């Protein structure tokens, strides 16, 4: 299951708007995509699930994808969500 780690750089954390962007970006892919914050995990295609993660500024989150388009999904998420998160270089695990 490929995954990338990202630091949240939005001052308000993963609040409604960036969380909605996550859901919209993730929903374009068939893969199952999850976001982990510490020991908690959320479905990246569900807004309520993401908002429940309580991701704050400077949180390091892991985005993991499983499925035929997993690599493409992670690449796309990292690019599209750049206003809110910064991928941590060298932390991509395939």
């Amino acid at each position, binding site marked *: 299951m490929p995954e990338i780690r990202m630091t949240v750089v939005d001052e308000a954390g993963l609040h*409604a708007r960036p969380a*909605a962007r996550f*859901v*919209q970006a993730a*929903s374009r892919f068939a893969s199952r995509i999850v976001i982990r914050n510490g020991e908690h995990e959320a479905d990246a*295609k*569900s*807004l*309520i699930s993401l908002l*429940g993660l309580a991701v704050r500024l400077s949180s390091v989150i892991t985005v993991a994808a499983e499925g035929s388009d997993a690599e493409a999904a992670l690449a796309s998420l990292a690019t599209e969500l750049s206003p809110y998160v910064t991928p941590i270089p060298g932390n991509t695990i395939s």
Partner: protein
Amino acid sequence: MSLVLVSHSKALAEGLRDMVVQVAGESVHVAVAGGTADGRLGTNAEAIVDTLRASLADGPDGVLVLLDLGSAWLSVEMALEELSDTERARIVVSEAPLVEGAVLAAVQASVGGTLAEVAAAAAGAASMSKAPGGSSNA
């Protein structure tokens, strides 16, 4: 897939629509029926009928109605009675809290959710925390 927001206050409904569109994007159809015909606080079955019909005409996928409280439901019920069975079959009235329900529903609609999926997303609002991961002194 359209959302209809029913509130006693036109300002509340329109403000919520602004918020929902900012979160979910311009592609989501959100219509409002707020206030009485003469601009007071209250709900208005006739305006709800008109809004529902216009929203049904917007696309083939149906309408999710979200409402604030109290007599809003009575007005929605009266409005539904004015509609045909075919029209009613394409409308779901959500029990979700208005703000959270509208935001969750709109995001689900923005990713191409069906009426049932959008209604299910809104229903999740009932168990949503106001302060996830936070503390409360209440």
